[in-house]
């Protein structure tokens, strides 16, 4: 576990060593606010809550998270630094986890910087702050799931653009798993059990219940397991072929 911390710190520092961190945070905040106020109709609704903010989170993440995660492993492969990292006395899993945690902590920071919205809504009325906290928790879990998928896609290639496109595609499929767009593909030939199983994998269904303030253990477990699964897949992809 000691090495996880070392790797996480190095990764986090590397975000801020380039303009990446600042550009990401700026775009994230601008888009989050634009979605909330213009598309979400924050004022027009006349309700003191952050529902318009959380509703658009998944769509914001769909493009921004793969942009963040695409470099996790593809860049290491491209620059060759993966050979340096993998020949240190570090367990593969420590490296996978360390890099993921750095990206997740960074997303948490970006998400945390939306706090003026929370202040605004408290200034304008008296919202259910418990529900807002649950919304933030759900959003963080969702970001974790997206990041884990992105990490896995990044481990498959040395090309960051490919990693980005794969990341967006897989995240999109998981986002809409509960909707006809995805389910119709399976309905014609797969048994109902499978269709139901796929539907239950939907990010949106699980995210929406949490963001409404309903914290169900099943929803939490879903995100934890999905994240764990894709991190494990990342490790397997790396182990199969380190010298891609």
């Amino acid at each position, binding site marked *: 576990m000691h090495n996880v911390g070392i790797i996480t710190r190095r990764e986090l520092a590397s975000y801020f060593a380039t303009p990446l961190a600042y550009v990401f945070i700026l775009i994230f905040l601008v888009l989050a606010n634009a979605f909330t106020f213009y598309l979400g109709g924050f004022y027009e609704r006349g309700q003191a809550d952050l529902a318009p903010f959380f509703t658009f989170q998944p769509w914001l993440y769909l493009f921004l998270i793969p942009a963040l995660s695409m470099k996790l492993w593809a860049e290491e492969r491209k620059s060759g630094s993966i050979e*340096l990292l993998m020949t240190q006395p570090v367990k593969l899993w420590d490296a996978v986890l360390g890099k993921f945690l750095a990206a997740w902590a960074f997303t948490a920071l970006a998400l945390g910087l939306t706090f003026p919205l929370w202040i605004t809504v408290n200034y304008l009325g008296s919202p259910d702050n418990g529900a807002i906290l649950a919304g933030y928790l759900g959003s963080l879990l969702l970001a974790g799931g997206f990041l884990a998928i992105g990490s896995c896609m990044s481990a498959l290639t040395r090309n960051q653009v490919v990693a980005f496109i794969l990341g967006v595609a897989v995240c999109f499929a998981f986002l809409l798993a509960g909707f006809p767009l995805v389910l119709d593909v399976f309905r014609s030939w797969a048994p109902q059990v499978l269709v139901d199983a796929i539907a239950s994998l939907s990010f949106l269904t699980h995210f929406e219940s949490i963001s409404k303030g309903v914290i169900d253990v099943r929803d939490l477990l879903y995100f934890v397991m999905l994240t764990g699964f894709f991190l494990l897949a990342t490790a397997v992809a790396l182990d199969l072929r380190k010298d891609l």
Partner: protein
Amino acid sequence: MIKTDHLTKHYGQLKAVDDVSFQVGPGEVLGFLGPNGAGKTTTMRMLAGFVAPTSGSASICGHDVATDALAAKTALGYLPEGAPSYGEMTVRRFLEFIADLRGLEGARRTARLDHVIGNLHLAGVLGQTIDTLSKGFRRRVGLAQAIVHDPPVLILDEPTDGLDPNQKHEVRTLINDMAREKIIVISTHILEEVDAVCTRAIIIARGRIVADDTPAGLAARSRYHNAVSMQLAEASQLETARAAVASLPSVAAVEVSEREARVTALPKPGALIFAPVSELAARTGLKLKELHLEAGRLDEVFRTITA
């Protein structure tokens, strides 16, 4: 001790490394030679635990690189080909990061960092990001990370590639200084390096070991081994010299370079021809600029056995 046992790596149909077995003991500096694409880097990557062997095994200080990978990696300092690193980090941060991964702590961490920074002359660039460094400095940063934990075994893939002659000399001095207490394997395609630092050389071609010998032993395989080369003061004497040397019974062949006004006599197997040739030169009245005995030409041996 480094040990490989029938080490083999296939990439699809391509046999990158094919049944390679050797051992390297303490005090040895093994030079790994071969044409580009011969399998040097793949072999080193397997030793470093970066690439898994298709079959066969390798161990570092008794730790199998596949089944006891962490212990093997702990005993090893490794410079990957091209000395990759994290370009956005400063030299100091990068070395500290590696020191932390290597588990160095407290006073020892400080002492080891100071040691490698001093030895590789990195003090002037500590605050610079690695991206902004010249090729020579990057290579030295790569060497510094390989030795920061003072490992008993060092594997360096082309440690002097891209360095200028002064820097090459410094790196070779560093390797020679460490050679007494460590096991060192370096890969190179610079043959002068073998003479400068190696106690033993393995030549690899198309994934297989084709020679395993001391540098002197390899040179002795050259047809120039014990040849006598003379440079004439006057090019007009070239033909006289050639004819005279060729008449000696122990001379197998004579080569003439008109550009250098040089005549080289190759001996018959086992024959020593230095004395007869020098006497002959005096007797025939040749005006010599220079006369010397050749040890053998490594580049010629290299070309002969890897072709």
